[in-house]
């Protein structure tokens, strides 16, 4: 065995036994440092004849490469072992509870209003608004409800004192969203397709009535619009809203001073195994009234400055709170306006439950 081979095998044995990264580094310096043994051998190559160098060169270079590789490998092994040892001491109890942050919610009334806007947008209806503090002309007179009409008394109207009359008109809290019909027809030319959701007020309070509630008004004014269009619109809306195709509607002749002919609309329900009413079912077990509707009265159209011989259309009004109750199964109206966090979290909707037609308007 030559000196070179002897040196190499000695170093390799030392490397194999090196116990830590410091020992590995010491061997590297001893062998490959400036004054290292292998470095020393490499320096001898310069003084050799070409023939000698041809023989010794590969041997010395081979030894250097073998030692370099062994050092790297040993270093890697030791580093892996050290990392494993450190990781073995680092432990987090992953069963510990974590907080996901406060969970907010959207009120069912707001959610249903968004659902309505989405459905009616697809049918070409824009969303209109109007004041809640109204005058009696927009709320009643223009809607063909003169002062002495029994329907006016039936509205249980909240009034403001006479001193607050504006332009000689008595001020009140709107009893329905229908004045938005008037404001819309007076401010834009037909064709008109709008819905108008919002707060409405009647001085009525019991298990099924609150003095404040929410309604949505629908209005279509165009040429040649008839009751068949009304029926289709309501059927289409109700099916889209409840996301069922087997919903049966029943139209009943009724009376609203601002529509003629007028119809109330019942929706068929079936009972589930717990006896709860579920909207829908081709063979209804019963009927629930959900909205009032009709063809806009020619006098109302004329009161808005439009020619009733040219323009006709339909209107409908529907309780939003009631729609929410029927769709999502609340059985009491009063908690809607109590702000009870338990109720809001139970019946509320996640912020990202934005109603869309592609994902379904319900959540």
């Amino acid at each position, binding site marked *: 065995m030559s000196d070179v081979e002897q040196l190499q095998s000695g170093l390799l044995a030392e490397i194999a036994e090196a116990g830590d990264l410091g020992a590995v580094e010491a061997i590297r310096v001893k062998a490959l440092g400036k004054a290292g043994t292998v470095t020393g051998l490499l320096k001898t190559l310069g003084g050799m004849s070409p023939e000698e160098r041809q023989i010794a060169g590969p041997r010395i270079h081979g030894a250097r490469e073998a030692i370099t590789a062994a050092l790297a490998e040993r270093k890697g092994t030791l580093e892996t072992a050290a990392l494993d040892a450190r990781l073995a001491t680092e432990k987090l109890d992953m069963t510990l509870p974590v907080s996901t942050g406060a969970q907010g919610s959207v009120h069912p009334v707001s959610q249903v209003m968004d659902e309505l806007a989405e459905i009616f947008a697809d049918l070409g209806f824009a969303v209109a608004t109007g004041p809640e503090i109204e005058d009696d002309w927009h709320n009643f007179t223009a809607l063909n409800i003169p002062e002495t009409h029994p329907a006016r008394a039936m509205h249980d109207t909240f009034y403001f004192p006479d001193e607050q009359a504006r332009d000689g008109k008595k001020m009140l809290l709107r009893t329905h969203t229908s004045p938005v019909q008037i404001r819309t027809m007076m401010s834009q030319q037909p064709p008109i397709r709008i819905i108008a959701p919002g707060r409405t007020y009647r001085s009525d309070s019991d298990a099924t009535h609150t003095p404040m509630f929410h309604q949505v008004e629908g209005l279509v004014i165009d040429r040649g619009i008839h*009751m068949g269009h009304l029926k289709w619109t309501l059927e289409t809306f109700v099916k889209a809203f409840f996301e069922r195709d087997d919903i049966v509607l029943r139209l009943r002749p009724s009376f609203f001073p601002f529509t003629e002919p007028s119809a109330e609309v019942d929706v068929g329900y079936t009972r589930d195994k717990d006896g709860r009413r579920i909207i829908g079912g081709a063979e209804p077990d019963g009927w629930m009234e959900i909205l009032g509707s009709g063809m806009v009265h020619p006098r109302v159209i004329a009161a808005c400055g439009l020619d009733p011989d040219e323009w006709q259309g339909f209107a409908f009004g529907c309780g939003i709170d009631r729609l929410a109750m029927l769709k999502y199964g609340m059985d009491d109206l009063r908690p809607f306006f109590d702000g009870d966090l338990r109720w809001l979290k139970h019946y509320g909707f996640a912020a990202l439950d934005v109603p869309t037609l592609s994902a379904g308007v319900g959540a």
Partner: protein
Amino acid sequence: MKFTLGWLKEHLETEATLDAILDGLTKVGLEVEGVEDPSAKLGMFKVARVLTAAPHPQADKLQVLSVDVGGPEPLQVVCGAPNARAGLIGVLGQPGDYVPGLDVTLKIAAIRGVESRGMMCSMRELELGESHDGIIELPADAPIGTPFIDYAGLADPVIDISVTPNRQDCMGVRGIARDLAAAGLGTLKNLVVPSIKGSGDCPIAIEIVDPDGCPAYFGRVVKGVVNGDSPEWMAKRLKAVGQRPISALVDITNYVMFDLGRPLHVHDLAKLSGPITVRKAKAGETALALNGKSYALDETMTVIADATGVHDIGGIMGGEHSGATGATSDVLIECAYFTPEAIARTGQKLGLTSDARVRFERGVDPAFLADGLAIATKLVTDICGGTATLAIEAGTPPSGGKALRYDPSLTEKLAGLKVAPEKQRAILTSLGFGIDAVWNVSVPSWRRDIDGTADLVEEVIRITGIDEVPSTPLPRAEGVAKPTATPQQAIERKARRTAAARGLNEAVTWSFISEAEAAPFGGGDWSLANPISEDLKVMRPSLLPGLIGAAGRNADRGADSIRLFEIGRRYLANSEGLTLGLLLAGDKAPRDWRTGKAQPFDALDAKAEAIAILAAAGAPVDRLQVFEAVSAGVYHPGRSATLRLGPKTILAEFGELHPAAARAFDIDGTVIAGEIYLDAIPAKRGGNDHIRVAYAPPPLQPVRRDFAFLVAADKPADDLLRAVRGADKVTIVDAKLFDIFTGTGVAEGEKSVAIEVTLQPADKSFTDADLTAISDKVVAAATKAGARLRG
């Protein structure tokens, strides 16, 4: 409006079943609200005779009866009624029968050891009356074994319909029958109008001084009547529809009103002095009405008076003083026409409603005064005897029934339903309309509601069946649906979902609050004249009272962390401003193994919510400035602020609720609240431009430098940050406050504020000299703002 099936059949010749009639009523627009069919409820109970009654061996108050109900064997029944005795004929319920008054289904039972196979019933147990002194006793000729309700004549189903305000003609059974006949459910019988041969002049004169309020008053006297109980058939029908029989004369007026929609009134002639005068009330006059209450009248109200004063509030309620009693011998029957608008006004003013008012204010048939009076007279003489005088017909009722020019094609144009003209003619004719060959339509006098051709269309389609109207799709605009939300609606939706995403729960609270709740907010501009209660009186000037109330209720229920928001309007003198109110109370973070003690909310949490929500709603939050709060008394003066765009446009106000305000709302602990004025957010300029500003990231990395400054402890941090940011507008792109320190090493009355400044090199890296120069500018700017570099 209630009526019985039997009563209906007085006017309608029909073979239709009860169910068919109920369906028909709803179909034509007379919505059925309820039906009480006694044969479904009480049909099982039978007439039975007590054969023997023996004492119960175990109980003093019970007897063991042997009861014959027509079967082969008598039944043994244990009974506790004091009047149970041998020979009594009563009403028996047997095992399986449901007793409505007890809410119990009978079964064979041992009562104190003795088997009982049924129950002898009281009136109350059958829900036929209040009497519970003992079991029902029937006359000796009551047929044993027959159903009790057949024997008692109670089998007539009672139907309750809702009559819409336009259909006064259906506030009498005959009008309902007419609608059903038109809908093919039978034939309307002829109305028999008796001809009354009066003898002698009416002994009292009738003068109409107020023809506007009462254009016509027809009346006559019947002399020598006996006003006893009304006959059983009439009393039974009145009871079935919820009317208490009073006396024959009064019952007759009620009967004719419910039968024919024709209100009447009867006066005891002996109690009238001088002519009957129909006039306006005088100021200060009062009327003591039949309901026992006294009403103060004014000059707009029509009254029936005599020489001594006011008797009746005309068309609404008769007077206590001159009403018919058992002693009445000569009676004046009144059949008048009152002007609907006047009745409505008077009724509203007095807050007085009655069956007569409901009919007069909807408009009774103006052509039915003489006939109505004749029918009433006949009933009076038939039931109470006496002799009728000649009638007086004072005044002239308005001519009812308009003439319309109709085009039958209108049905298809307006309702979308094609109905053959001949069918339309048949429908309208059966409803009483007259139609000539060229479709000139005369409206019947009882249909005051019909005043245009659209009304005729409604008549045709409601009788044809509104269900027949074919569903017709609305024409659809080309392409996909267009966006419909207005900018304000877009703002509202973004604000709502951002607040919810940030952990706030949306509430909806009343728009009206109490005066006390409004007071800290400067009171409300709008207070209801007729609030439902003092708590719901003032239109809210702020959303906070509602939220504070809700927070208080939640705290009372044990909620430990309250995050609420509401989006709604605040009601100002001249506008309704869309507002987002928010409230934070209790724990911001609960105690936790990681973070330790529970952390409370502070006023800056509201600032964070305000900025985040404003940003989401599209407000230019980079330009917002913090100013002091403006709602004095609402917020803690040192822990509240407004966010403004310039000095005038306030976008939000928030802070810690003033302890005095919190106390006024009876809520404990620190409450953080705020309002974001969504209506003040400036509209975005530019239309539907989706193209963003070109993307141009800086080519070189930014450089960060930290500075610590000493400033007066009460120096607003924002002043210093603004100064630093403004020190070199080209290179300084951000300045972040990352630490505030007071204590060791910082002089009393001072604080150390640490700021990280981010510098952005443009096209070449900063040199040391550049950086030193910028640092010097920063320090100089801070110094100018009253700070000095911390050494």
